[in-house]
């Protein structure tokens, strides 16, 4: 790619936006997974504690 060509800034901007959007989708999905897994473990631990206290 010739970086001195006219309008090359539009090309760089398009690739930068694509990177941000795709990285955003990946990070949001992985962060959601971590948060759900953490919450599930917390609820499961609480349920186990409750059962132990009953017995």
């Amino acid at each position: 790619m010739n970086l001195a060509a006219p309008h090359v800034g539009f090309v760089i901007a398009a690739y930068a936006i694509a990177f941000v959007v795709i990285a955003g989708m990946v990070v949001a999905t992985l962060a959601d997974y971590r948060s759900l897994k953490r919450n599930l473990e917390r609820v499961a631990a609480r349920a186990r504690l409750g059962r132990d206290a009953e017995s």
Partner: protein
Amino acid sequence: MQNYANPTHFLRLVRVLLPVTAALTTVLLAVGLYLALFVAPADYQQGETVRIMYLHVPSAWMAMFVYLVMTSAAIGTLVFRHPLADVAQKAAAPLGAGFTFLCLTTGSLWGKPEWGTWWVWDARLTSVLVLFLIYLGIIALWQVIEDPGKAARLVAVFTLVGAVNVPIIKFSVDWWHTLHQPASVFRMGGPTIAASMLWPLLIMAVGFTTLFLTLHMLAMRNEILRRRLRRLSMLAADGAAPLSVVAEPAE
């Protein structure tokens, strides 16, 4: 196949498939980007700005493909009442919105140097904007209806009604006079693009498709866990959660 329609079996399948699709996506996008930026020639008229095509066209295809996936899932929800179809619908919507946003922004960045304007209200651009708004509407519907089963049925109907926009997007350049160019890859008589530009475009398109498949599987896994968490929380509110529910694997 029927076995994998069970959410727990589906999670096991995801664990096997995810590394494969993730690796495939990384390789395809790396090769596609290298070919698009350093090997494919500049266009004789557009110059370097033609390189936006390698992002814009795959994201436009994905915007429509994701909607077709959602339409199939909507049929699964309404006809078979299958919870995994509900999950597939919900998980796809934000990804479809992301690809459509990418299509609109890269198109705008391509349009300014080529057409002299960021935006024009022609049939192709407007119908893609409508698709983006439909995606946002679907995401909003999922957010405002608390009962996932009820939300799935409502969203499925909305999705099926919105599906009429997909052929409008595809054929808008044939049905109306638009500033947007007509189809140049999937058309009667074969592609009109030179092989040196077509191959990077196809590799990027396959890379975007595997990217969607990877993210969709991840998002479906998240949604299954979210529903499991909701069920557990409701059981916990009623009393202690039974061991069978707590003991279900997280993935």
